[in-house]
């Protein structure tokens, strides 16, 4: 069911120490709510991304639980503090068991 799932993440390439930066994430996903019916009146089973986590060098930034009310192609914008150079790791968990990951490096000058 999880076709063409593609994460897109925007993280600045550089920051100063302890700078608060804005991160934008979007992952293409149909987020089938489990509320819709097909032509025969049968309920289309729920199939969504139910969790997204963001870590920086192993420390948590954000842990989000998603319900069917999150729109198609879930978009989340938030801010993170950058104490040092390192990597942001983004992980999305699909109802079907799939896990999608993206990693973005940032350099602290």
């Amino acid at each position, binding site marked *: 069911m999880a076709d063409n799932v593609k994460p897109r993440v925007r993280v600045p390439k550089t920051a100063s120490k302890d700078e*608060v*930066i*804005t991160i934008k994430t979007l992952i293409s996903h149909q987020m089938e*709510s489990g*509320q*819709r*019916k097909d032509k025969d009146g049968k309920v*289309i089973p729920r199939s969504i991304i139910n969790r997204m986590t*963001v*870590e*920086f060098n192993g*420390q*948590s*930034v*954000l*842990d*989000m*639980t*998603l*319900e*069917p*009310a*999150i*729109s*198609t192609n*879930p*978009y*989340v*914008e*938030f*801010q*993170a*503090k*950058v*104490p040092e150079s390192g990597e942001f790791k983004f992980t999305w968990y699909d109802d079907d068991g799939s896990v999608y990951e993206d990693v973005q490096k940032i350099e602290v000058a």
Partner: protein
Amino acid sequence: LAGLPLRVLAQAAAPAAQPEMTADQWVAEFAGGAEVTDGDGVTLTAPEIAENGNTVPISVDAPGATEILLVASGNPVPGVAKFTFGPLAGNQAVSTRVRLAKTQDVMAIAKFTDGKVVRAKSNVKVTIGGCGG
């Protein structure tokens, strides 16, 4: 809010109804027994009118909160999302896009380290519902 207990009863009595939690139950579970107050500390930003309920931009800002729950009281599943902020969160603010089935109150409930649970509410008029089938 006076009508809500009735709705809970009505739902429990209907055998065909799915065992879906009501908006109040979502809030109560999140609050974990703490009193939920309406007040300062949580800012919920939502459009007054959403032409398309399929994608309604919602922002919430609750400085110092540990967790925020978003609830859409008029949706088939009232829970929308829960945000837990880690030690490297830059602040306690997030923006996302949600589905709203009809005109309704959207709520953001924030939990703080001192145990306080604060709610902000915003009415959104929806022209085209976002749960259609």
